């Protein structure tokens, strides 16, 4: 059983980088869930809308990349806020399955809207960086991935600070823990929900732009959002750190499974399926994920 060290190392590096991206999207998902108890099946569509918005600004208005990027972020923040106020607020208190269905309905709606506005074919992003790839430990990595990894780490640090030390962050954690008590202490739950959605939309847009720069923007970009689920389950649904760890683990797992598959097993499909097998295994051993809080049932 020979081990091809260079290939393995390259795959590990690739796994970490792509995993950071999964971690970013997983973080947004957990943010919404933690703050407003909503499972957002439309996370992929947030990425898609962000990608298309940035592309549109770049191509139609010929703005420089950073300007378009920042405008896209601002737009997505507003978009998330408005969406929460209009659609999700009436559903506070409804059973979780209804809320899941609403987000599914939203994803159908936005998919069709994006196809109408931007067409059904894949569109390439104009070249953004002077050097398209850099060499990292023997692996050629796209510059945009390096940028996204750095931004992801920055965002994770920002989130960590936000939730631990800022008023709003504490307010969010309090609301996630117990809505009624938070309300009774004067925290505006409405604001917390709206803000959670806004931030989540904004950060998803970042991930969407990155994927768009690499692969071109197309309606199928939203399928990236499906990978989020194994990541958040691995990490635990109510843990932001867990989401990041879950994302990175999934990225690594995919690549390692692919390595095992291509070298020894030759089944063919492990790259896509391994995360889901892992998900089931983790759930058998730790039903609440690696970092999720265990539900203590009081009678």
């Amino acid at each position, binding site marked *: 059983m020979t081990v091809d060290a260079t290939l393995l190392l390259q795959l590990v590096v*690739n796994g970490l980088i*792509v995993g950071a991206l999964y971690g970013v999207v997983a973080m947004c998902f957990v943010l919404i869930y933690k703050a407003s108890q909503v499972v957002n099946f439309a996370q992929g569509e947030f990425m898609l809308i962000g990608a298309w918005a940035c592309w549109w600004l770049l191509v139609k208005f010929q703005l420089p990349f950073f300007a378009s990027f920042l405008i896209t972020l601002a737009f997505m923040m507003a978009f998330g806020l408005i969406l929460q106020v209009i659609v999700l607020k009436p559903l506070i208190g409804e059973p979780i399955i209804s809320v899941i269905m609403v987000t599914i309905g939203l994803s159908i709606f936005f998919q069709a809207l994006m196809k109408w506005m931007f067409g059904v*074919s894949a569109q390439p992003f104009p070249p953004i960086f002077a050097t398209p790839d850099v060499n990292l430990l023997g692996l050629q990595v796209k510059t945009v991935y390096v940028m996204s990894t750095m931004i992801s780490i920055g965002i994770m640090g920002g989130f960590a600070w936000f939730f631990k030390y800022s008023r709003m962050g504490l307010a969010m954690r309090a609301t996630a823990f117990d809505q009624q008590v938070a309300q009774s202490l004067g925290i505006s739950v409405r604001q917390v929900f709206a803000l959670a959605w806004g931030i989540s939309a904004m950060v998803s847009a970042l991930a969407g732009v990155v994927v768009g720069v690499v692969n*071109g923007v197309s309606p199928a970009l939203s*399928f990236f959002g499906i990978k989020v689920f194994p990541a958040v389950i691995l990490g635990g649904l109510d843990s932001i750190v867990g989401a990041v760890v879950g994302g990175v683990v999934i990225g690594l797992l995919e690549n390692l499974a*692919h390595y095992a598959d291509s070298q020894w097993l030759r089944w*063919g499909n492990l790259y896509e399926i391994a995360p889901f097998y892992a998900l089931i295994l983790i759930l058998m051993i730790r039903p609440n994920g690696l970092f999720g809080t265990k539900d203590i049932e009081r009678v």
Partner: protein
Amino acid sequence: MNLTRPIAGALLSGALASMTPLTATAQAIPIGHLADFSGATADVGGPYGQGVADAIAHINRQGGIGGRKLDADTVDYSYQVPRAIAAYKNWSGKVVAIQGWGTADTEALVGFITKDKIPYYSASYAATLTDPAGGSKADKPTPYNFFYGPSYSDAARAMVQWAAQDWKKKGGQGKPRYVHMGANHPYPNSPKAAAEDYARQLGFEVLPAIQFALTPGDYTAQCLTLKQSGANYAYLGNTAGSNISVLKSCQTAGVQVQFLGNVWGMDENAMKAAGSAANNVVFPVRTAAIWTDKAPGLTLMKEISKMSDPSGNAYRASHYLAGVCATLYMKEAMEWAAANGGISGENIRKGMYVRTNWVPKGAEGVCKPSTWTPTDHRGMLQVDLYRAEVKDAGDGQIADLIARGAIQMKRIATIDLPRNKEWLGW
């Protein structure tokens, strides 16, 4: 994608069709048209469906068939099987032929159309549809399924044959290595066994297949494996969206491999989206000419294009031309049927068998000569291979990019496959 009047025109004819009873009156010939303008395969389904719709409108403009106009009901079923079935049930007993689309609808309806004896012209070129008797390799008899173009398997075999010649020409030493890349899904898997078998026959070393999903994503892992395996020729079996991702990932990973595309996996739009990563990809083209070539048949194509684009400026992808060809074959089969017993499903089918090396009138140089027989529905065994040449990853309309020379498709080979009995049906 500029679809201004096209869909309106198609839906308008559909609206009119739905308002008039769809019975085969002395005046109109009812046909069904399934298209995907808004679903998962819309990026290639749009141009193909447009070609079919425009061709039908043009046929009607020229007076129809024997004085009778075609009454086409265009249904956009968004690649969802239940809608295709519902549309078919609406047509069953009324239409005499159907212009279909992809694997989903073709497979779902094959039983029904065989029982109801309605010729089905699909854009799914699966080899299992080519054996009318449904012999050992294909499970089901498909006497009423036709398609214009080489089957996926035959196109793959042609590229394997080209690859063998290319290896010799390049002076390659030893056995060349071939690998199939695609998702574990009927569409990419369709030609896998056939191509790998033929590659072995021609002396290739066939490596284990590499899988990647039908959705765009990051495929660095697969590209690294490809690089490490030392493959020389890699067949990309998926549709354009994910092929673009693979090409880009492999370009970044520094993979030196000759990529072989498939009919739906590489076209002008994919070349634009993938940019320089698509440079040098070899892929089959179903028509003898592309829009910017010079051929006598392109005059007719340009006329047909004006049915939805009066300005005449739109660039029509290769899929559009293929859709027109498919419709023209149906039209000439109907003309034969009209003169030989009346237009019915069975007669149209018989009409498909009367000519050999058949090119529809007016389409010389565009629609390649095709021959269908009652025992062999492989219409085209001659495959044109083109190479994609992409100079810069620019943005802009496809027509401009081609005019500038930033995107080019150059024909590099025409492979004539033998009409082997052993190759029928798989």
